[in-house]
């Protein structure tokens, strides 16, 4: 059998992976001084190019219904690479979101002004924390660019993850974007012990979960004699192999729910978010969630679409747990990053509402929510990275008292992001919540919405508390201050804020987009 490769359809993925290879070579052969500009150029360029291709593909898809013309190059709503990849509306939207977010996150990673010692990453990851040579390298102001290849591979993997159309591709994509994340998580310049710990936990648990995913895939394969979603879906309709299928679905769910950080697979989230370098946290919290939800949607809508009556109750429980426990635990957090981590767990729960309704509305609302949440999340962590004192980032809540006085603008923008996370009208967060709630009630999940409402009520408390802290409390003496970032971060924050407002005030265009994206291809 001859496999044709639809290069245009796969272009975004190929571009980033290729760029990744390229940037490895850059690391290897280009002199240190030149590396940063080149790498940066490479990264931003490749992301832009990939995004351009996504747009081209999307427009081409909207041109006409391509499925008819034999899955050939032109119309791109199609299975690519011999059915291993499905480039369809939702898939492309997800890819687009990932690329946008990663572009903004890249700007954060490139920031070199907010930390007097350089950037957010260890001058040499290989040196021991607190060791003599670490001090030397730091003193000499060594700066690494080795995260860039990792970053590119990571984004490339993320692009593949939600569009992969069989379990193998999906597993590979999962590992391709996870492994770089594990490494980058360990590279923080300050508080390296925490950074290492984060990496270790992330790695062990991540590997653990992906093993579940893989074994689940094996069971499904054993039951349906196929790893391709479409065929699996068909085979499941009339399969007697419940003994294999049910555990299979469960274990695959474990693998994916881990990545989206749903309760009870969430415990890595706060630790990893706290330990990792903050720009990376921004990236993870946004991009990983988007990619993972993309994959989750595809698996449960396409492969297990016929079984929705079986897995829905399970998802109900997970969603309720995520919303309630996420909001509940955030209430008593004292560390800004951890609080936001738990809030992101809660948001996973909200997004699951969209997934559960297994309808066109559910799909589109989930996509919208992902976009909205992605930007808000990047922005919020970007600002967390700016609040610093001598020892680095000041993430303890008490240190945020009275920031509204010191730098009203940053505080106001941060407040904006918090309001968006809390789902206050005229912010993207509200539109997203509104969309998924609507889909859920329409899908007959009213009780879930009630729980969501209660959870949001609890959540409102800790968001509001931060605002009280920033605006209504007197700043402590020797409190931290908001450092003035370079253009990179400024642009990143600006974009996020802009999107957060735009999607709240005039969401119609984006809504049109996600609605027209249509359903997954089978």
């Amino acid at each position: 059998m001859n496999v044709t490769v639809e290069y245009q359809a796969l272009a975004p993925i190929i571009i980033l992976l290729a760029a990744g290879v390229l940037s490895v070579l850059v690391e290897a052969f280009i002199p240190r001084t030149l590396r940063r500009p080149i790498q940066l150029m490479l990264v931003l360029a490749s992301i832009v190019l990939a995004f351009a291709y996504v747009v081209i593909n999307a427009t081409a898809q909207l041109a006409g219904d391509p499925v008819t013309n034999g899955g050939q190059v032109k119309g791109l709503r199609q299975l690519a690479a011999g059915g291993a990849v499905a480039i369809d509306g939702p898939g492309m939207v997800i890819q687009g979101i990932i690329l946008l977010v990663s572009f903004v996150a890249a700007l954060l990673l490139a920031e070199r002004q907010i930390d007097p010692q350089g950037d957010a990453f260890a001058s040499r990851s290989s040196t021991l924390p607190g060791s003599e040579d670490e001090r030397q390298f730091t003193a000499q102001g060594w700066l690494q660019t080795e995260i860039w290849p990792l970053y590119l591979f990571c984004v490339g993997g993320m692009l593949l993850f939600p569009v992969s159309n069989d379990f193998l591709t999906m597993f590979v994509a999962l590992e391709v974007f996870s492994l770089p994340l594990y490494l980058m998580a360990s590279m923080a310049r300050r508080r390296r012990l925490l950074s290492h710990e984060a990496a270790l936990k992330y790695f062990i648990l991540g590997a653990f979960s992906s093993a579940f995913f893989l074994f689940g895939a094996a069971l499904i394969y054993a039951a349906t004699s196929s790893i391709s979603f479409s065929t699996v879906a068909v085979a499941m309709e009339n399969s007697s192999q419940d003994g294999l299928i049910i555990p299979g679905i469960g274990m695959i769910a474990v693998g994916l729910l881990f990545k989206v950080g749903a309760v009870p697979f969430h415990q890595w989230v706060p630790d990893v978010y706290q330990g990792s370098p903050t720009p990376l946290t921004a990236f993870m919290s946004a991009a990983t969630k988007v990619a993972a939800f993309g994959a989750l949607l595809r698996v449960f809508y396409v492969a297990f679409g016929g079984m929705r009556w079986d897995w829905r109750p399970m998802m109900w429980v997970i969603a309720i747990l995520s919303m309630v426990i996420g909001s509940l635990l955030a209430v008593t957090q004292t560390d800004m990053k951890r609080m936001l981590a738990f809030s992101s767990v809660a948001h996973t729960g909200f997004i699951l509402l969209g997934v559960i309704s297994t309808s066109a509305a559910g799909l589109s609302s989930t996509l919208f929510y992902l976009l909205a949440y992605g930007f808000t999340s990047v922005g919020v962590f970007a600002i967390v990275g700016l609040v610093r004192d001598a020892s680095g980032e000041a993430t303890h809540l008490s240190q945020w008292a009275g920031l509204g006085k010191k730098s009203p603008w940053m505080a106001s923008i941060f407040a904006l992001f918090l309001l968006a996370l809390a789902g206050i009208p005229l912010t993207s967060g509200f539109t997203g919540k509104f969309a998924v709630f609507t889909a859920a009630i329409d899908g007959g999940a009213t009780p879930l919405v009630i729980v969501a409402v209660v959870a949001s009520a609890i959540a409102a408390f800790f968001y509001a508390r931060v605002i009280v802290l920033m605006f209504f409390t007197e700043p402590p003496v020797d409190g931290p201050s908001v450092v003035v970032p370079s253009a990179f971060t400024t642009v990143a924050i600006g974009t996020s804020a802009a999107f957060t407002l735009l999607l709240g005030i005039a969401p119609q265009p984006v809504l049109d987009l996600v609605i027209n994206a249509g359903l997954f291809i089978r």
Partner: protein
Amino acid sequence: MNPNNYLILAAILFTIGVYGVLVRRNAIIVFMSVELMLNAANLAFVAAARNTGTLDGLVVAFFVMVVAAAEVVVGLAIIVTIFRTRRSASIDEASLMKY
């Protein structure tokens, strides 16, 4: 003999792997247990391939080996860093971040 037994064996291996992850402190051994889980999956794939008479399972097995290798590289790198700083490979010691 009944090829389903291979699946059962795979399940047992997987369980052993899980058990290892849960009870062993040494990061290396925990990590080995994870590898064991992956290989259990491999076995399942191969066995299933034999059952169903399709090739996909075998292909998967090859890919998984590669991926596992990559994972080893990353994993060991992280574990070694930890070990060098803490002079111990116990993953329980890496518990500064909690609550």
